[in-house]
């Protein structure tokens, strides 16, 4: 059967160019996007869905020429997609989050390092979502206060205070875990 479109509907080149540029700029950031999503939604399958949704959303709004801010821009979309999802899932209570401690096995061979990593992961997972988000963005993604403020849509002062409290709480949680292990 002949193509139904025949000569109709030739796409302008810029759609393809847009895809090429988008993939060139955004696909290398997938690990960052996944890490953030994984820490926000706290399980692997949801994180995959969130990253895919974020990339499709990002592509729709992508206009090229983003340079340095590209990563913060993508992470903001990831964060928004995750928030929409969390709102639907209603896991804002800290109880629900505590049950969702990440269980991914680490490839590390040393048992000690392994348990250390597991301890850090579950300590971070146990933090309230606001604190967890800023810690992931600052310590893992090494973003500036301004970028974190744009991603989380709160003032820089709030970013600062969440970081301070998040760090204190994480230190406390880690300390408690170590003490429990020693008993």
């Amino acid at each position: 059967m002949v193509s139904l479109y025949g000569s109709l509907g030739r796409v302008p080149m810029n759609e393809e160019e847009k895809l090429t540029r988008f993939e060139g700029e955004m696909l290398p950031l997938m690990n960052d996007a996944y890490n953030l999503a994984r820490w926000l939604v706290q399980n692997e399958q949801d994180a995959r869905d969130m990253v895919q949704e974020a990339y499709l959303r990002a592509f729709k709004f992508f206009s090229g020429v983003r340079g340095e801010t590209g990563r913060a821009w993508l992470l903001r979309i990831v964060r928004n997609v995750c928030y929409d999802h969390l709102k639907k899932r209603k896991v804002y209570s800290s109880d629900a989050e505590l049950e969702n401690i990440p269980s991914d096995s680490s490839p590390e061979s040393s048992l000690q390092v392994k348990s250390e990593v597991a301890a850090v992961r579950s300590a971070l997972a146990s933090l309230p979502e606001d604190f967890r988000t800023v810690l992931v963005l600052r310590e893992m993604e090494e973003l500036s206060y301004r970028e974190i403020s744009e991603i989380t849509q709160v003032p820089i002062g709030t970013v600062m205070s969440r970081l301070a409290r998040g760090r204190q709480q994480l230190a406390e949680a880690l300390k408690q875990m170590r003490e429990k292990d020693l008993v």
Partner: protein
Amino acid sequence: MTCDELHEHLDPFFDNELGLAEAQKIQQHLEQCSGCGEVYAARLAVRQALQKPEVRFTSPDDLRDQIQAELSKQVRPAHQATWRLPSFQFPTWLMPSLAGAAAVLAVWFGSNVFLTAKRSSNDLLGTVTAQLVSDHMRSLLPEHLIDVVSTDQHTVKPWFAGKLSFSPPVYDLSDHGFKLIGGRLDYLGNQEIAAVVFQIRQHYINLFVWPKTEYTYLPDTLVQKEGFNMYGWEANGLTMCAVTDAAPDALKAFVDLQKQKHAETE
């Protein structure tokens, strides 16, 4: 600088977000005050813990491929300029009606293209469009056009609600010359779909609506088939296809209004 002042600025100092002058004051205080030095050391321990590469999660290997495939779908439909089906697997729900649709059209046009068609994805899409065209033609037979006669969207929409598992958008476009005249249940394969019926001057437009499936992707473009104009698109999990004998411009205007209304109400 007091210890309280230091605590206030410790995190921005730690994150290199302070100006040089302030940072120097903090630095001096930290060198002299062991209590604050411990607080600083605790920050550092947290950072070192979080920055272990093993603590991060790494994107699964297949996710990149999956996303690239999805992205290229955003571009490819129009690029290939065909009504595309993503899979070569023949949708079983279309099987029973394929012969029927083909026979109707074969008689209608004295052609048997559908019987000789190979099962490629284009042909499957052809089956979808052929069915919609035949649905449209059948609707033009006397007494076939409308099951619920109403120019009121608030009558037509609830009528569908009682009969279908999805809710087709029903908008009153009479201000723009597209008069809503009613609704009807129709079929695509053996699936019940909605047909919202509009009239522009002496022409009818059937707007077919059904839940999006992987077999019935319609690219967002005008198509001419068997003397009818068709325009398919997707919105909010629904696939829509308007079929009419009205002119392409009129159809395009109609589709644009539908999309606009849809965007306004979602």
